[in-house]
């Protein structure tokens, strides 16, 4: 199965499970569906979630965990039965990834926390002379957090070139567009000034994603920042760039239309 098929299945699962559970954060999950698809289908070296030498992955924007659960299901780590418990009582599958769920390295949900844990994991790999890499997916809104920049400085100072950060740069956050809330212009220049290796890519273009992620030089002496330009709600036209879909669940009509738009026969 190629990464495009992965992405289609991830989007289907996001829509199906969020409809069944009647919960939101759909737009945020759809925004990262392609990034998650490429990472889990082609990039991450995880022979099993228990392998201590596995690459680590931190979904720092924990509110998009449904995309991660979809990838776990496609990897065979999560059964359909358990996937169907998303947001149900007595489930391991909450809106944010819970520690203890197979495949989750770090529980997240508190924005600005993921990068420092990932930097610790990257430092650990370096100290142990391990070749494993640590990948982090952050939202652009997380860049509002001071702790994010603490970790940015640390990673560059300690030359954590086994650390790869992907920013889901959809330009939107909980209450509006990032440019209106707290401006994030000139991000490449900012990260370069902080000593990172920076690339800006289309976060929905699989060949660009795969090229950038597979081309990471983990011995370059610099941590890696991939600024992935994305669209909130990508794939469902009425959700795209619409802040409501950071929160809202779908009606029956909206669900049918969404499935049709991502190419699922109802």
């Amino acid at each position, binding site marked *: 199965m190629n990464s495009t098929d992965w992405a289609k299945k991830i989007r289907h699962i996001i829509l199906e499970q969020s409809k069944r559970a009647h919960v939101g954060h759909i737009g945020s999950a759809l925004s990262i569906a392609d990034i998650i698809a490429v990472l889990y289908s082609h990039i991450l070296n995880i022979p099993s979630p228990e392998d201590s030498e596995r690459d680590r992955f931190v979904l720092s924007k924990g509110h998009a965990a449904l995309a991660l659960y979809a990838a776990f299901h496609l990897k065979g780590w999560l059964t359909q039965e358990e996937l169907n418990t998303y947001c149900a009582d007595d489930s391991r599958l909450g809106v944010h990834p819970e520690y203890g769920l197979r495949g989750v390295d770090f*529980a997240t*949900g508190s924005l600005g926390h993921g990068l420092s*844990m990932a930097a*610790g994991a990257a430092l650990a790999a370096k100290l142990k002379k391990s070749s494993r890499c640590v990948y982090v997916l952050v939202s652009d809104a997380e860049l509002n957090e001071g702790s994010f920049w*603490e*970790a940015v400085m640390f990673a560059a100072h300690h030359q954590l070139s086994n650390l790869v950060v992907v920013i889901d740069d959809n330009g939107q956050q909980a209450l509006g567009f990032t440019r209106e809330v707290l401006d994030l212009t000139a991000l490449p220049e900012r990260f370069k000034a902080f000593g990172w290796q920076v690339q800006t890519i289309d976060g929905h273009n699989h060949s660009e994603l795969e090229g950038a992620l597979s081309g990471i030089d983990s011995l370059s002496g610099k941590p890696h920042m991939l600024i992935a330009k994305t669209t909130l709600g990508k794939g469902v036209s009425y959700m795209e760039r619409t802040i409501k879909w950071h929160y809202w669940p779908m009606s029956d009509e909206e669900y049918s239309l969404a499935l049709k738009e991502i190419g699922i026969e109802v």
Partner: protein
Amino acid sequence: MRGVVIGTLTELAEQDPRIVLLTADLGYCVLEQFADRVPGQFFNVGVSEQNMLGLATGLAESGFIPFVYSIVNFAALRPYEFIRNGPVLHQLPVRILAIGGGFEYGHAGPTHHGLEDIGVMRVQPGLTVIAPADAQQAKSALKASYHLPGPVYFRLGKDDKTVLPGLEGKFDLGKAQEIRKGNDLLMVTMGSIAPSALEAINTLSEKGISCGLMVVSCLSPAPKDDLVEILARYPLVLTVEAHYIVGGVGSLVSEIIAEEGISCKVFRCGVRSTPNGITGSEKFLNDVNGLSSEKLVATALQALGSF
């Protein structure tokens, strides 16, 4: 305590490469021994306490035993949520070395006073909370908690020399140390204010009052059995702590008394007011807040009189 603990930690780190020490740019004339002897296991992460706790979480997940070091407030309060969602939530062996509880940074002012750290740490399930009364007990506590798979919070005093007579460096997880027995009144204390309580007890004894002294150095898991057994023997208890009266050892004792239906009256000696802008030495501030031995004696006599 801090010098002795770092000395012991250095010896442990020389034998155990899993130990790493992170500081948020503090520890002058304290951490050098570790940095010099095991430089590959030492990291000054800069003035970034949140990141320090996040890094420690990531390191611990990969099999390290990270110790993080800073002044009490900067170790406990600034990164509090990173402690909660990091080592506590993931049950990872991060050790927090929080230096200078109470008014130990006297003249430095309220930004540097640690008056609520035990309260906020004690509420976190699975977090072992330790406030040794002297350096030898701190050393024992470090060794006794070394094997724990979960996180540990240490409130460590700056003073390496003071010895609390009768304690003899004893420490056990989930246990308290009764270092003086009596009949009329029991003082229960924690941390480096303990010598003040002992001095007050000596004065009271000279006045013919039979006083006991219990040191609660392991706040969580609480030494419940010891507290139940010993509190039941006394009609009157004074809790003594360089901490707000809410959340610390006074609260712990009150919880046990209420839950177990123990018949004894509690007077909580600790900090009751918010900072008022007046600075001074640790000794001065302890006295202002009723924690000097003289003030404790006065409170005890008043409590006995009203009883």
